[in-house]
C-alpha cells in the first residue's frame, strides 16, 4: 500500500526527507549561523588584534554599540546608505521597467540586445567600478568629453573628486549595474499578463496609456514590490563598487555603512565596534527580508504567482 500524498508520510520517507535537508542545513550552519554568532559574540567583547586568535578579550556588554551609536560618522554613513539605496532603486526600477516594456514586444535583434544588456549585470562589481572611474574622470573620461562636445566647458565636471557630486557618480554606476536585473524580473512579470486583457481593453477603446495605467501597472504590483524588496536587500549592503570608485572619499562623501564597518574593522582594528556596526548594518536588509518572506508566503497561500 502506498501512502496517499498529502497524508502522513511513512517514517522511512520522513527520514529520507531529513537526510535531504542535511547538506543545506549544514551549509547554513557553517557559513551563516556560525559567523553570525561569532560576530555577535565579538560585538559584546573588547577584542584586540592579538586576541583574535583563540578568542579572548573581556566582555564589555553594550559598550561597543554605545560607541558606534555615539559616533557622528556612523550616522553620516547611515544617511549616505539610505540616499545611495533609494537613489539607486528609484532609477534602476523606472529604467528597468521602461526597458522591460520595450523588450516585451517583438522586434528585430530583441534577443541580442537583451543579452547585451545583461552583460552589465554579469560583470564583477570591481570591473564596473573601475570602468566608471575611468568614464567619470575629469580629464580623460568619456562622459566629460561628451559633455564638452555638446556644451560649454563648464559642463564637464570632476565628479568623483568633488564631495558634492561623488555620491551621485557612485549611484550612477550602481544604477547601470542594477538596471538589467530589474529589467529581467519585470519582463518575466509582463509575460504573465494575459494579452487578451489588453486586446479586450483596446476593443473597448482604451488607449496605450490607459491600458498601461489600468491593466499593466495594477497587475505588475506584486512583481514590482518583490523586485524593489530584493533590490533594497542587495543595494543596502553594497561595498565593492563604492570601494573601487572612491574608497569612501573624498573626505567622507561616499562612506556608506558597509565602508564604515570595513574601516572600523580592517583599518582601525576596533573589532568589537566593527562587529557591532556590522550587526546594525544587517538591520535594514533583515527587516526587508522578513517582509519579503511573509509576502511570499501570503501570496503562495493565495495561489498567486510572484
Amino acid at each position, binding site marked *: 500500500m502506498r501512502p496517499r500524498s498529502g497524508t502522513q508520510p511513512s517514517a522511512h520517507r520522513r527520514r529520507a526527507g531529513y537526510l535531504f535537508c542535511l547538506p543545506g542545513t549544514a551549509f547554513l550552519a557553517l557559513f551563516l549561523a556560525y559567523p553570525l554568532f561569532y560576530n555577535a559574540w565579538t560585538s559584546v567583547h573588547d577584542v584586540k588584534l592579538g586576541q583574535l*586568535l583563540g578568542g579572548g578579550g573581556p566582555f564589555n556588554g553594550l559598550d561597543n554599540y554605545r560607541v558606534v551609536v555615539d559616533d557622528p560618522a556612523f550616522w553620516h554613513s547611515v544617511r549616505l546608505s539610505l540616499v545611495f539605496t533609494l537613489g539607486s532603486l528609484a532609477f534602476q526600477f523606472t529604467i528597468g521597467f521602461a526597458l522591460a516594456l520595450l523588450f516585451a514586444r517583438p522586434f528585430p535583434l530583441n534577443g541580442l540586445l537583451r543579452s547585451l544588456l545583461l552583460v552589465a549585470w554579469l560583470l564583477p562589481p570591481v570591473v564596473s567600478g573601475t570602468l566608471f572611474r575611468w568614464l567619470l574622470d575629469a580629464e580623460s573620461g568619456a562622459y566629460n568629453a561628451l559633455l564638452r562636445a555638446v556644451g560649454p566647458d563648464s559642463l564637464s565636471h570632476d565628479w568623483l573628486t568633488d564631495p558634492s557630486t561623488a555620491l551621485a557618480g557612485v549611484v550612477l554606476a550602481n544604477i547601470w549595474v542594477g538596471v538589467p536585473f530589474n529589467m529581467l524580473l519585470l519582463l518575466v512579470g509582463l509575460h504573465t499578463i494575459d494579452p487578451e486583457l489588453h486586446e479586450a481593453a483596446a476593443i473597448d477603446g482604451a488607449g496605450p496609456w490607459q491600458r498601461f495605467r489600468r491593466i499593466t501597472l495594477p497587475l505588475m504590483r506584486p512583481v514590482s514590490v518583490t523586485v524593489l524588496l530584493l533590490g533594497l536587500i542587495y543595494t543596502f549592503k553594497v561595498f565593492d563598487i563604492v570601494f573601487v570608485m572612491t*574608497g569612501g572619499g573624498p*573626505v567622507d562623501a561616499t562612506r556608506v555603512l558597509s565602508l564604515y564597518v570595513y574601516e572600523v574593522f580592517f583599518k582601525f582594528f576596533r573589532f568589537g565596534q566593527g562587529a557591532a556596526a556590522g550587526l546594525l548594518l544587517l538591520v535594514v536588509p533583515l527587516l526587508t527580508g522578513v517582509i519579503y518572506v511573509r509576502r511570499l508566503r501570503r501570496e503562495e497561500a493565495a495561489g498567486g504567482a510572484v
Partner: protein
Amino acid sequence: MSYTVDRRGFLRTAGAGAAALGLGGALASCSSEESSTVTLTWWDYFTLDNFQPGMNRLIKDIEQGVPDVRIERRTFPFAELDRQITLGAISGDLPDIAIVDNVAMNTLAGSDLLADLTDRVEEWGQADQYYKGPWEGCQVGGKTLGIPNNSNCLALYYNTRMLESAGVRPPTTWDELASAAQRLTSGDRFGLALSAIKTEEGVFQFLPFLWQAGGDLDTFATYGATALSFLDDLIAKGSLSEQCVGWTQQDVNTRFLNQRAAMQINGPWQIPTLKSADFDWDVVALPRDRAAATCLGGENWVVTAKSKHVDKAWEVLEYTQRPSVLVPYLVSFGELPSRKDLADEGTWASDPALRLFLSQLPLARPRRYGPHYADISQTVAEAEQAVLTGSVSASAAAQTAAVKIDKALAAQ
C-alpha cells in the same frame, strides 16, 4: 647575472615540475632528502610584474644558500596584506615570514603577532650597519621585532626641458616651489603633481609638509594649518590639480610621464619606469620651509610569533642581509638599501638620481606614532581632502583634526 644550478636545485625544480604534473605523491615517497627540509611560508605585497624576476631570484638564492629550506610565497595587493594578516590572526593561518610596510609596525607591534628577535639580533651584531630611521622603526617597547628590508623616501622630480624653457631653477624653498609651480602651469599642464588620496599614500606625501613647516602631529593645530594652507594656495592658483585627492602615487607618476605635470613628488621606486621616458628629468630634495624633511618609507622583514620555525626563519633573514644577496635584489626593485655599508655598492654609487634619494635617507623621518596611528592617518587624510576640495578652511580643518590626533596620541 647568471647562477649555476647545482644537483639539489635541479632535483627541486624537477620535483616541482613533476608535482605539477600530478606525480608529486609518488616522487615524494621515494625521496629521502625532503624529510629534513623545512617549508617556510612567506607573504608580501610585491604584486607588480617588474618585481617578480628579482623576487624569484632571491627566493631561489635562499633555497640554495640556506640549508634545508623551501619557501612558499604568497602575494597580496598592497592594501590587502594588512587585512590578510588580520584574517590570518583569526584563523591561525599566518606565514612564518612576512615583508610588511614599515608603517604597519605601529599596529602590529602591540598585537603579540610578531616574534621577538632581540636576542638573535644581538648575537648577530650588525645593528649599527643600518640607518637610524629604518632600524628604529623595528624597535618597539625595547624589543627588535623586525629587520629593515629596504628604504625609500620622497623627493621632487622635475622635467628638465620644461624648467629650462620657463627659465625656472629647481626650487629649494616653499616660496620657490610655489612660484615655480605657478610659472610652469599652462594649458592642461599643472606645475606640480602629488598624491593626496585618502589612504596612507596621501598621508605619506603630506607629512613632509607638516615637518617642513616646523611642526609634528602633536602641534597639528598650528603647523598643520600652515601646511594645509600652503597646498590650498597651490590649488587656488591652479598650480596643483584638485584631482590630486583621488590620485595614488602611481597616478602622479603617470601624469609626470605624460608631461601633464612639470614637477612631481614621488619615491625612488619610480626610477625604473622613468628611465624609459622620452624626455630628460632630474630629481632634487624636497623644498624646505623652516626645516628640511622627507618621509621614510620602505618595508621590514618580520617573523610571526606563532611560527614553528622561528630559528630557520631568522636564518633566512640573516642570509638575505649579506651584500651579495641584498644588493642585486634591491637594485632589481629600484629600492634603496637600509644599510649604510651598501651606499657605495651597486647602482647607488653611480646613478645620480638614486644618490640623491640616498642622501635624503638620514633626514627621512619614520612614522612612529604608536598603536593608534591608523586613526591619526585617517584624520590627517580627511583634513587634507576637506581643505583641498574647498569644503573647509585650512585653520578650521587643522583645529578639528588636532583634537582627534591628540586623543589618539594620548591613548596607548
